[in-house]
């Protein structure tokens, strides 16, 4: 019985570098190890990863697995599934955890299926009941939570949501590196160039106040309503993904996992329910204000101040009051 943390690195610009969420997963692995009285090891996959592996040797771990292969240089679901599967066979780990990144979302279900298992994706918390692991994940875009239990035999696989565990809780220690060379064949997928779209003209990260709009605004013609609020506050206007998808505001104004991550002095979310993909992009804001007609909307879980009500009535009233307060 042991725990394995599969870390993630990416070579987007320059040499391989950690995906920051991996540290949160490592902290979770150490926590589980303590609770279940099991050893925990960590693995890093790729090519040219010596320095990353040696960084892990300074953590409280049973072992560090450095899984190196030329075919792991560029990520593909086929090669990464093969490599992790072979590492799991070797280590016989009973719990294997991953950060819930776009890359993990791409291969973890494949790996689990190859093992005849189901991975529990996007876990936000856990507890131990009668020595058994209970995982908590979200349903309906964060409106509800659900407890999930594994019913079959290990190995148990799970991916952890960004921000669910704290990287600053990692315990230092020392661990030895063990190199592991998997047998892998070239992928059917041919990964090509990594790129960003045209330069961002709007840097939302520099804004002190952001007014952000979501589906609640209903149609493009209503955008000026929130623009007026942004103007009154001297704020940048931003949006949740669906608004940009619909072309009501340009993509460069999108906040969330696929857009920009912001942490302004004040973030005012108007008509945004607060799906996790949005929350990860703004929950570091100092003051969060939510205006939404649904009192159970997940945005209120992170809000400091809120008004439950119809934005079409609340926002114009707010503009008036802000003007008065600033006068």
């Amino acid at each position, binding site marked *: 019985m042991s725990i394995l943390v599969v870390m993630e690195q990416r070579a987007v610009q320059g040499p391989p570098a950690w995906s920051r969420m991996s540290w949160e997963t490592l902290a979770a692995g150490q926590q589980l190890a303590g609770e279940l009285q099991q050893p925990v090891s960590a693995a890093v996959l790729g090519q040219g990863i010596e320095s990353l592996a040696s960084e892990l040797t300074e953590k409280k771990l049973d072992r560090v697995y450095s899984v190196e292969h030329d075919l792991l240089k560029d990520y593909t679901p086929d090669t990464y599934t093969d490599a992790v599967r072979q590492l799991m066979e070797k280590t016989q780990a009973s719990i294997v955890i991953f950060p819930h990144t776009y890359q993990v979302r791409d291969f973890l279900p494949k790996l689990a299926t190859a093992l005849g298992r189901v991975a529990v*994706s996007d876990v936000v918390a856990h507890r131990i009941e009668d020595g058994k692991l209970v995982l908590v994940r979200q349903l309906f875009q964060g409106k509800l939570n659900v407890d999930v239990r594994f019913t079959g035999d290990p190995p148990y696989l799970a991916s952890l949501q960004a921000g669910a565990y704290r990287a600053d809780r990692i315990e230092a220690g020392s661990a030895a590196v063990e190199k592991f060379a998997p047998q892998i064949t070239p992928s*059917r997928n041919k990964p090509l160039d990594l790129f960003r779209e045209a330069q961002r003209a709007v840097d939302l990260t520099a804004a002190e106040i952001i007014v952000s709009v979501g589906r609640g605004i209903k149609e493009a013609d209503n955008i000026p309503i929130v623009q007026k609020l942004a103007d009154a506050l001297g704020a940048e206007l931003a949006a949740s993904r669906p608004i940009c998808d*619909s072309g009501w505001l340009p993509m460069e104004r999108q906040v969330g996992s696929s857009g920009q991550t912001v942490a302004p002095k004040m973030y005012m979310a108007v008509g945004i329910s607060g799906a996790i993909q949005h929350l990860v992009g703004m929950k570091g804001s100092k003051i969060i204000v939510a205006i939404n007609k649904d009192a159970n909307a997940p945005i*209120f879980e992170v809000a400091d101040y809120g008004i439950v009500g*119809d934005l079409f009535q609340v926002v114009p009233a707010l503009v008036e009051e802000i003007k008065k307060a600033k006068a």
Partner: protein
Amino acid sequence: MKIIVCIKQVPARDSQLRVASSGAWIQDADLSYEINEPDAYALEEGLQLKEKHGGEVVVLCAGPARAAQTIREALAKGADRAIHIEEEDLGAFDPLCAARLLAAALGPEKPDLVLTGLQSDDLGYGQTGVILAELLGLPHATIIMQVEKQDGSIRVKRELEDGWFQHVEMPLPALLTIQSGINKLRYATLMGIKKAKNKEIRAVTASGLGVSSAAPSIQLSRVYLPGRSKQTQLFDGPPKEAAAKLVEKLKFEARVI
């Protein structure tokens, strides 16, 4: 090109959700339902690919009898025919069992391309497409924002974090999970709605496909409202009053105005 699009019917986005007294799921009797949003984009992508390259779009949906409404809407938008895996208690199927259902129904169709939404708005595992690819032995790519057909292969644009993208080339047949926003959704035309009435919906069952929900790997044991991580100060009353109270707090307590 023969394209199969997997769609799911989910509770409408603005549904007021209440936990059932059993605590095992939500009260679903009075909800209204709609197509899972990313699946709507997958369907649109399938229709656009067919319009460009010819072929057929087949819609595949597992769900209870009420899902027929969502299937008809997909046919009205232009899908050629549909397969409905009629299963009243889909909740008993874990993601692997659910994907086995889809795999059993679509395998014999020998599609060139299988499209799914990247995740469902209800359970949100974000796994069905990838599991399905593995069960069918197909290469896959996820969170796709662009699809270009080439000779015997496709070139896709994968979305990554922080505004990054990657192009990936892969042979056909393949499976893609589609991201919302990849295209612009169409509305069904009156003509489309009329035509849909005569399109084939083939009904199959889980037992007919030889797939059971027995021996799941995971079990959902309790559904509940999440706790709040912060104490939210809520202001109520008429909009003007609530707005005045909020602005006062923002000015004198939070000092951001």
